[in-house]
């Protein structure tokens, strides 16, 4: 295939472990990463949109800044694992793609850092009763750009035939018909998820027996969340088909010919999107229809999960011609893999235990707090 002559040679060192294990770990860790990224991206966008002028909007901003205090560092941390596994399996494609837009790739980190610090700045200003709108907009722009850079590099690493043009300049790197729909696909999923999350949190808080004034604010917050999730999902269905049909013809055909393994997740994803839309359209009074907000959040997360599988499969189809002659040699260091799995289980269990304890342990009346 034209362009394949620029693909660097395969690393002569064997891959330490079976490839299926890398794919499983890659997809699983990427799913956790992308759910956290959704919280960050959607949260910063919605917070900037909402502003903090009205009481119900201020509640939304406070919630999203609080969520992002956790979601930003955890999304970075959970991004490390898929970054590691993509380098093991597709290192030569991935490094080349990053090298075609090196300053943008490195600049991503600067944007991430600015966005992260802005979260603390906005929290601090909000607590002091100062304006935050401009900072929230700046933060949202940072995370939107981070997403765009990620999409550009991901598209490049799958298409060696575009490398020559990308090497000639940024315009070549951006000239991909799937760039905009793919970017929107990520953004809209994030907005739908965070919209549903805002509604769910409002419903939960209202369920704890609050005063009328507070209930009214929570009602405004829930309606805002549902509306955002509804419009984002509606646009997502349109954008999803745009993305599907913007795929290069051979990729689309290759994907469609991949059989049930590819069709089932895709169908489930579309179905979840349609169901979500129907579901959200039925919500007229979110506080009264309390179960619906939770269902909406579950549906959007389920749709994300199956779409992560689809994304992985589409990448395989994209790269199939370039990897046709690839013969990866693997070894089986099972002792090491077992050590990792034991530490992984123990580490996650300890983290969960610590977080649950931090969330639930409260001093008794008269007892001193830390």
């Amino acid at each position: 295939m034209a362009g394949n002559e620029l693909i660097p040679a395969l690393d002569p060192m064997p891959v330490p472990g079976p490839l299926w294990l890398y794919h499983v770990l890659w997809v699983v860790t990427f799913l956790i990463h992308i759910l956290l990224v959704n919280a960050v991206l959607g949260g910063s966008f919605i917070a900037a949109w909402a502003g903090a002028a009205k009481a119900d909007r201020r509640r939304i901003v406070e919630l999203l800044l609080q969520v992002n205090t956790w979601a930003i560092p955890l999304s970075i941390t959970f991004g490390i694992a898929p970054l590691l596994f993509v380098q093991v399996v597709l290192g030569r494609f991935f490094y080349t793609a990053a090298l075609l837009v090196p300053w943008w790739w490195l600049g991503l980190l600067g944007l991430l850092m600015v966005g992260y610090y802005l979260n603390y700045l906005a929290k601090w200003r909000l607590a002091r009763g100062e304006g935050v709108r401009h900072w929230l907009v700046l933060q949202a722009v940072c995370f939107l750009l981070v997403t765009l850079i990620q999409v550009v590099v991901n598209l490049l690493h799958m298409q060696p035939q575009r490398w020559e043009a990308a090497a000639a300049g940024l315009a070549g790197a951006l000239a991909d018909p799937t760039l905009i729909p793919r970017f929107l696909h990520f953004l809209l999923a994030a907005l739908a998820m965070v919209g549903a999350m805002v509604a769910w949190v409002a419903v939960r808080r209202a369920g704890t027996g609050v005063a009328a004034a507070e209930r009214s604010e929570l009602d405004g917050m829930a309606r805002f969340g549902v509306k955002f999730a509804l419009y984002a999902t509606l646009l997502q269905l349109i954008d999803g088909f745009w993305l599907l049909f913007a795929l290069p013809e051979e990729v689309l055909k290759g994907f469609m010919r991949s059989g049930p393994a590819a069709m089932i997740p895709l169908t489930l994803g579309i179905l979840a999107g349609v169901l979500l839309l129907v579901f959200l359209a039925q919500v007229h009074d979110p506080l009264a229809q309390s179960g619906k907000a939770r269902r909406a959040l579950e549906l959007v997360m389920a749709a994300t999960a199956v779409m992560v599988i689809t994304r992985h499969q589409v990448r395989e189809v994209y790269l199939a011609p370039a990897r046709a002659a690839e013969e990866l040699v693997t070894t089986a260091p099972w002792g090491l893999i077992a050590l990792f799995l034991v530490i992984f289980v123990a580490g996650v269990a300890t983290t969960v235990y610590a977080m649950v304890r931090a969330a639930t342990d409260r001093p008794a009346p008269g007892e001193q707090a830390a």
Partner: protein
Amino acid sequence: MDYPIWHLAFGGGVLIGIVAIAHVLVSHFAVGGGIAMALVETLAVRRKDAALRQLAYRSSWILILVSTVFGAITGVGIWFTIGLIHPTATSALIRTFVWGWAIEWVFFILEVATAVAYVATWNKVRPRTHLLLIWLYAFAAFMSLVVIQGIISYMLTPGRWLETKAFWDGFLNPTYVPGLVMRTGICFFLAGAYMAFAALREQNGEARGRLVRLMAIFQVVGILVAYGGYRWWEVALPDPIRALFLGDAPKLAALAATRSFLLWALAAYLVLVLFALLAPRLQRWPVTAVALIAAFAFFGGYERLREGARKPYIIRDHMFSNGVLVSDIERHNQEGILTHARWAAREDDGSLEGKGRAVFRAQCASCHTLDGYLSIRRLLASADAAMVDMILEIMHEQGDAYAGGALPDTTTLDYPTMPPFVGTEEERRALGVYLTTLVPAHVAEVRHGR
């Protein structure tokens, strides 16, 4: 070598140095700070000491704002940067140590979650839970150092891995333990150096003196451990590496000067810390800032020394700094470097000069820029074609020394910090032609005139 070359005027090595040193100065505090905060808060709870509690509280904000934001992102930044500057070496490291990194990542999860929870739960949870969070954080942060030290030290002293290619042989290499001891000391003194600023914020004079002294104790202990670890590290180095910067006639004067600088920086740091220990009430922030700079100077100097001592390799005795494998020298000499450097080969326009430019991109451009860092134009400013040819011939012969079976003592070579030239006779000639075009015209004319 086989990837697109990123042309940076100030040099890729400098960029890696900036990102890496910025990261380690923060990440080692993240490790030591965790242990120090855990100890300080434990003491505060046991003694019901409000000043100690406030010290832990203020320090926890430094931890969050400096370590989990800047430290975490620059940590990923090192990965991004080495992937851009040395993709071949990064790939080799990933293939060798992927499970080590995966294990480190698990500790990161625990580290980040407990750090954020620790700061978020002041005045909310019972002291025991709060202490559990910080001790878990300290454990996870230290374990991440235990893991990454194996990978960092492997690059300089891969030890038995060269024969076995086994994970544990590379990980538990000859400088692993000495380096870990030294870095543990650095973690301690950086904890004290950063947290000394938090101690100075204490309003009560008597309490401030106590806190400053406690932080000084941390630093003195850290300095002594780091110094011991450093000396042990020197002893553990193979002789050819030691000869680069140690002894009566070190082979690389610049590295020997770096060693001298870092030890003097450590001595100056110790003096400043002893001052804080003996006269804590007199301590003011400018002195604390100078002490922190001295601490940075020692650590930054050490990292510079460690990186410099690795030359001409990126993974010692295995891969050169331009990504050429030692085991590939003969193959490249026979088949030509450009058949294995797809991106660089695009520069080859069919002319001898074009081919030479392509060879330069493939073999030299990962370290040398044209006019910036390690400028090739400046290095060749006084050379003519004959001299360039001679240099390349010697460098080609150095390749034979590497390819001959037993690896040479690099200090005995004419260009001990340079990878050998690999490639065909035509490629060598082409590189010579290209390099001669970079020499200022008047030099060539003067030489011809003579």
